[in-house]
């Protein structure tokens, strides 16, 4: 099998090399990819959408259907991870809970109906408890707000600099995942519950599709943002720019929560205990 795989990969590689000989040279300005539709994007973006970042304009305006369904794909992937992995324990299976007193390191076992003293010094733990390093915990805790501010900047400044919904959403999701890795999954779930993650993921996609439907209701084509001009109180070109921002925010919410959702399910194998 190994030899066969090598032969197949080699033969395919030879065919690809044979085909690549006829391809245009690297960085050729006259290559077919750069001559048909892309000059229109580069030269007309500013007057048609008023967005200097052409990538953002193409992403969320010219090819907006593509992007909407990419967001749907991400949403579906997160939902699939949830359905494949998530397990809900029955009530009798979680009768006993373990709590650790943070200051003394004593672990207590709480039986069904029992309660811990009302104190913040207890943390819920699993059967196998792995200590998290204090330095890592503190540093990650300090970093998270800055990562999130940067992510919001990337989302909001996507019109004028490299950035946008996808990138900002991934950075936002990474900030939550950093918290989950440096502490444990329960700490993260206290701040961002599973229900919130699921609902926000759907809200992000809905914001995108809803903007399109609103354009449809206002008498224009689906996702033709110039229909939003009377609502936003600006000209049709500026309305396109604002419409792009709205759908980018939707994408950012969907991507962030999808990343967090996938991480939660995969890292804890669906039981939402301590995680990694």
């Amino acid at each position, binding site marked *: 099998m190994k030899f066969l795989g090598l032969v197949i990969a080699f033969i395919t590689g030879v065919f690809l090399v044979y085909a690549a000989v006829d391809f245009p040279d690297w960085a050729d300005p006259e290559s077919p990819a750069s001559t048909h539709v892309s000059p229109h994007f580069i030269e007309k973006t500013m*007057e048609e959408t008023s*967005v200097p970042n052409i*990538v953002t304009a193409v992403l969320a305006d010219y090819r907006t259907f593509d992007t909407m369904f990419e967001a749907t794909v991400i949403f579906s992937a997160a939902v699939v991870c949830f359905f494949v992995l998530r397990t809900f324990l029955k009530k009798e299976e979680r009768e006993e809970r373990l709590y650790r007193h943070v200051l003394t390191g004593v672990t207590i076992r709480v039986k069904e109906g029992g309660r811990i003293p009302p104190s913040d010094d207890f943390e819920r733990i699993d059967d196998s408890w792995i200590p998290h390093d204090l330095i890592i915990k503190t540093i990650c805790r300090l970093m998270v707000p800055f990562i999130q501010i940067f992510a919001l900047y990337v989302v909001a400044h996507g019109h004028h600099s490299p950035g946008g919904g996808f990138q900002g959403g991934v950075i936002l999701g990474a900030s939550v995942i950093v918290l989950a890795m440096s502490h444990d999954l329960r700490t993260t779930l206290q701040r961002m519950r599973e229900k919130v993650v699921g609902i926000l993921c759907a809200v992000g996609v809905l914001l995108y599709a809803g903007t399109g439907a609103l354009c449809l209701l206002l008498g224009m084509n689906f996702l033709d943002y110039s229909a939003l001009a009377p609502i936003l109180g600006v000209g049709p070109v500026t309305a396109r720019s604002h419409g792009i921002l709205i759908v980018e925010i939707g994408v950012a919410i969907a991507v962030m929560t999808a990343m967090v959702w996938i991480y939660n399910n995969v890292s804890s194998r669906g039981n939402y205990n301590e995680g990694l």
Partner: protein
Amino acid sequence: MTDFAQLVVAKYNYWIYITLMMIGLYAIISKNNLVKKILGMNIFQTAIILFYVSIGAKKGATIPILEHGHGPAHGAGSHVVHAADYMNPLPHVLMLTAIVVGVATLGVALALALKVYRHYHTLEEDEILAQIRKK
């Protein structure tokens, strides 16, 4: 000989992407472990991303973000934009979404691998097949 050397240098992006893609294909076909297969799939995907991004390059062009976009001296739209000065934005757009979708599909693949591991207690393909045949 110089023709050949020129060909190799002028299209070097294609050679890199073909090499990466074949490494990925070999891993998908030959590796026994499911996680290694998934990694091979990701390398394959990276090769395609590299291919697309390299297509977007233009000699002497800058990133596809317009200069003087809302500059006060120029005013919106008054600045003449030449297509030769900016890279092709289309491959960037396609790959931007492909990267994030790639992460999401990687998550699904890992979830399925976890499910397989939970059922068969192994990720080696031959051992899984042996267990299926035994039943």
